[in-house]
């Protein structure tokens, strides 16, 4: 009698564990799909670029010709340079503005106003890339061409960077629009790391007779690595941004543009612009190879950025707790 009772209890326990175990495994399986996707992505992008990789090898990254018509020679160096240059311009413009917004949100603005301002910053992030492109073509380009670039040239025209004809679109224009597009990510992540700075740090400096700005400097230096992480995240966004750049940079394959007003190309832009029209297998493969290169660069940037942000937030929170 007694033994039957305990037997059925064990059976009940087993069934209970089984159901829970199955559910745990199923959800783990789904959680693993993201890992699987990234692995599969590496594999598929390599497979798609195989023709190009075989023909050009590592020379693809250093090559400076792009001839889909006659020689079928492809090299991506100018595209990489174009991507890095436009991203650098974007960072140069957006970093000071974004850090300013981050400080404003975490140090100056009351909670109630913060809700409103962060909503506006989020809106900026919610506008699709193509709409930035559309606005860029019909509003920003005419504005810059008529009201800004001629004055820049008048002052700085002796420098090669600002000489040459002004089309409106081009490297600088693409950089400006990219800057607008990455302000939300940099400012929201820096706000997060600034807010994570322990209050005791602020009070220490305020009690020594610091002004608000001097308090901000302490906050910034405490959160320095987190801000670097935020900037790296912004860089990751800028590197991969496609449609707006495609619509504004002029899409000309050349090793170096003659000035910042000149047309150029980026990795993402060439894929968007030429992919549907690529005719030969090697041409398609070369474009996928550009995609693979972009993938690897942005993987690197993103991993570094995430590691920095994660580490800082954990470190900062650890300190304030301990």
């Amino acid at each position, binding site marked *: 009698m007694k033994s039957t009772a305990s037997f059925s209890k064990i059976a009940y326990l087993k069934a209970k564990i089984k*159901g*829970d175990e199955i*559910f*745990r495994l199923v959800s*783990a399986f789904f*959680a*693993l799909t*993201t*890992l699987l*996707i*990234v692995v*599969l*992505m590496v594999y*598929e*992008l390599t497979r*798609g670029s195989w023709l190009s990789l075989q023909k050009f090898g590592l020379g693809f990254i250093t090559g400076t010709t792009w001839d889909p018509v006659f020689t079928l020679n492809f090299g991506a160096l100018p595209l990489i340079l174009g991507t890095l240059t436009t991203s650098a311009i974007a960072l140069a413009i957006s970093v000071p*503005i974004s*850090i*300013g*917004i981050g*400080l*404003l949100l975490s140090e*100056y603005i009351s909670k109630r106003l913060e*809700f409103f*301002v962060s*909503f506006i910053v989020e*809106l900026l992030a*919610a*506008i*699709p*890339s*193509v*709409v930035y*492109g*559309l*606005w860029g*073509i*019909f*509003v920003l380009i005419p504005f810059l061409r008529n009201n800004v670039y001629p004055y820049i040239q008048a002052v700085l025209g002796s420098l090669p960077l600002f000489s040459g004809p002004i089309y409106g679109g081009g490297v600088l224009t693409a950089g400006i629009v990219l800057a*607008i597009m990455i302000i939300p990510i940099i400012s929201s992540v820096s706000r997060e790391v600034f807010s994570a700075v322990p209050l005791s740090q602020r009070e220490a400096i305020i009690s020594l007779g610091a*002004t*608000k*700005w*001097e308090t901000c400097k302490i906050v910034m230096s405490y959160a320095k690595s987190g801000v670097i992480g935020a900037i790296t995240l912004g860089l990751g*966004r800028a590197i*991969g*941004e*496609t449609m707006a750049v495609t619509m504004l940079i002029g899409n000309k394959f050349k090793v170096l543009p003659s000035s910042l007003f000149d047309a150029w190309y980026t990795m*993402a832009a060439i*894929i*968007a612009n030429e992919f549907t029209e690529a005719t030969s297998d090697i041409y398609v493969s070369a*474009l*996928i190879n550009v995609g693979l290169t*972009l993938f690897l660069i*942005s*993987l690197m940037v*993103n991993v570094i*950025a*995430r590691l920095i942000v*994660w580490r800082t937030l954990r470190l900062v929170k650890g300190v304030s707790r301990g």
Partner: protein
Amino acid sequence: MMDNYRIRKIKDRLMRILLWSSLIIAMIPLFSILLDVFINGARAINIDFFLLPTPTVGEKGGIANAIQGTLITLGLASIIGVPIGIMSGIFLSEYHDSKLSQPVRFINDVLSGFPSIVVGIFGYVLIASVIGFSVIAAAFSLAIIMIPIVTRTTEESLRMVPVAIREAALALGIRRWKTIIFIVLKGGRKGIVTGVLLALARIAGESAPVLVTMGYWRWWFSGLNRPASNLALNIYLFAISPFENWRTLAWGSALFLILMILGISILIRVLTRGKYE
């Protein structure tokens, strides 16, 4: 000493002005974009705009086929992406002590930062290069963009469900998996809906992955294994075209898209309001 203090005070005021102007500088393009899209878009909108498909040069037309195609593509993407996202969110929140959860969370964060065009190329190589440009390939790519967003918001909202509720359910002898599905998920429902909406707002505006997986389609939807028209991609193609009626449609489509995304963001704000107050 006094002079030094005056300089510090001036610097403090100057920096305050600079910080506020950084916010104003960032708001100028936002308002310019919204204003231009509303003014130019409003001109494009009439009854034809909602009822007719993409026109040929110089004819009357609208975005009816693009709305249809976009809805179908987003729907299919959600069918693929939402369950995966919710399930991995459940895993990260309910089994957060698992060794897997930290790397999965990390990969998720990294995946959310990937360029969408690369995700598109992945969809092309894996699917479109086999069955051709199609709604399936586009939806697959967009689903991958959705997953990290849904995962993250699901995890966050489930974590806000008090432990006491879980314990109460477990104490009643309800199994853990049933507790999660019927009680915890119910508690985090609002957050999950928010996550799905957020993901939809994001992919509704994606055009780069659509371009390389589905290409351009001017007609009505004609099967999941064929391309369909897409609102966001249309904006690109219409904007770079030389035809006046297409450009007008580009602004109209942009207005429609922005209103859609704005609507979703406001809905999200309303849904999450209680959470932050």
